[in-house]
């Protein structure tokens, strides 16, 4: 039996005056899936998240969360959700543990449930020894983990994460990914937006690539790479003056060539072989690197632009 569909969007559209932030987007998310929205800043990811969370009203299309329309059943829909917004909005007037308890009260949960739950979540977020600290005193990574712990206080069926690791250092990101992975294992449906391809590859079962409010592609990270890129990529740097002009001389090597301002990408199933061909033509790149194709390459292929500007 297939898991039930928990989120269903049909031609979901949001306009602000002349600007169409989200343009007729359709997707479905089954329970327990980890679903990603990958795209650059301004692609409409956060707007889509806000509509799912029932804090932004759609302009047209249909949207159903757990069978409910968030426009008409905002509080009820949000009772099923945990929301981690892009910017932490912890309650700075309260201490760490109080943040969890008070947030739980907003969901109408009794203290007899909240007290043990708060301790459990502090443990989960590795913040037990910070329970009585002021929010101000936490590091960026700790605040993020507290925000996630807070979003879990109502045992949500769906966790919305808007750019969960933006602005965190690599170690904090990995800690966070580990925590999110545990949630996924427990069967929580994760919806996350990101402009980091490695994050999408790590966490998402399936994702949509969005650009300018539209869906460019949809699938699992592996299938998207298979479909829209080669197995490997050869990255060459010839120095900033030569990168653009060198394209002609590299013609015919690999399946496809992409000249970026700082480097040239050659898409080939065998990167080493492509590199041999380059040197055989007497070209001497300053640096060369063979790597696996990533979602970054998929995005570049689909939009002609990089994910992170």
């Amino acid at each position, binding site marked *: 039996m297939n898991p039930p569909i928990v989120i269903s969007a049909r031609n979901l559209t949001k306009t602000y005056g002349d600007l169409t932030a989200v343009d007729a987007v359709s997707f479905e998310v089954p329970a*327990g899936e980890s679903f990603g929205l990958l795209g650059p800043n301004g692609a409409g990811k956060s707007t889509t998240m806000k509509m799912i969370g029932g*804090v932004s009203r759609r302009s047209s299309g249909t949207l159903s969360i757990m069978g409910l329309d968030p426009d008409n059943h905002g509080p*009820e829909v949000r009772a099923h959700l945990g929301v981690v917004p892009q910017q932490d909005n912890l*309650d700075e007037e309260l201490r760490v543990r109080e943040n969890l308890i*008070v947030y739980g009260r*907003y969901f109408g949960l009794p203290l007899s*449930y909240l007290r043990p739950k708060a301790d459990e*979540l502090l443990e989960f977020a590795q913040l037990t020894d910070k329970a009585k600290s002021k929010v101000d005193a936490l590091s960026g990574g700790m605040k993020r983990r507290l925000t996630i712990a807070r979003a879990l206080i109502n045992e949500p069926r769906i966790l919305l994460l808007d750019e969960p690791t933006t602005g965190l250092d690599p170690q904090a990101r990995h800690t966070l990914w580990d925590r999110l992975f545990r949630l996924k294992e427990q069967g*929580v449906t994760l919806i996350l937006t990101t402009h980091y391809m490695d994050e999408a590859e790590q966490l998402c079962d399936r994702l949509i690539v969005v650009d300018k409010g539209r869906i460019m592609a949809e699938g699992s990270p592996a299938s998207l790479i298979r479909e829209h890129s080669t197995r490997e990529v050869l990255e060459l740097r010839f120095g900033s003056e030569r990168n653009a002009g060198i394209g002609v001389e590299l013609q015919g090597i690999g399946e496809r060539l992409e000249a970026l301002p700082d480097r040239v990408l050659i898409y080939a199933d065998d990167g080493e072989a492509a590199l041999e061909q380059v040197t055989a033509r007497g070209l001497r790149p300053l640096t060369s690197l063979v790597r696996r194709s990533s979602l970054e390459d998929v995005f570049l292929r689909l939009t002609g632009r990089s994910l992170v500007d």
Partner: protein
Amino acid sequence: MSALAEGHPGPRSATEAARQRTFGPLYSRNALAVVSRGLMAAKSSTWLILVSGFFEPVLYLIAMGVGLGSIVGAIQGPGGQEISYAAYIAPALLAVSAMNGAVYDSTWNVFFKMNFAKLYQGMLYTSLGPLDVAIGEIFLALLRGLLYATGFTAVMGVMGLITTPWALLMVPASVLIAFGFASFGMGITSFMKTFQQMDWINFFMLPMFLFSATFYPLSVYPQYIQWLIQAMPLWHGVELLRQISIGSFSSATAVHVGYYLVMIVLGIMLTTGRLRQLFLK
């Protein structure tokens, strides 16, 4: 399917029960959560503000009532009988203090929470509706108004300015006044984007404080100024409390109370509508 479900057995968990409640699109009958958050935050916040809000009218009462009153002498009260100048201005100052307490909480406090602390944004990501938030915040403002009013009434008692048991009704009447100002203040604050705009509130409140028959009767003004002042909310509060303070009621009492009831209803409608527009757009 719940996150971290271990340790919470039972087919119908607390979270399930919380989801089974009836919700409205704007209200989920949980304003109490907003109130308890406010009380918890107040534990750590500055008591100084609370104290200064209480002392301000007391200082006015001493300076004007006792000091200035000694050269003014007796003055004609609402029922026509002579009362001391201090007894004349004390209920007016109480109305002002109810207004100040409510306005401080519902404007500056709300302004900060709305624009800097992102508090309401966080609240509205939960199963709270905008009406829960509005009611909760207004209730907190009322609580402050109640504290001020009780304290000031006690000071009046100590100074021998209370002569009738009716005067105790000044406390709930002050809360009514605070309610009117708090519900409207929060709605108006939602339009404010900068600190400069917030100053307009003071610009409006100071003349209202000085000229709403606070320190002398309305009859000193020409007719059209009287009408203007009678349209303002504080005058109705001043008159209401002044009548209650000596237990002298008239048909105007009902008008004063009615003025605030209308103000409360319109204020809550405005505030809820604005919260919805701002955060659920």
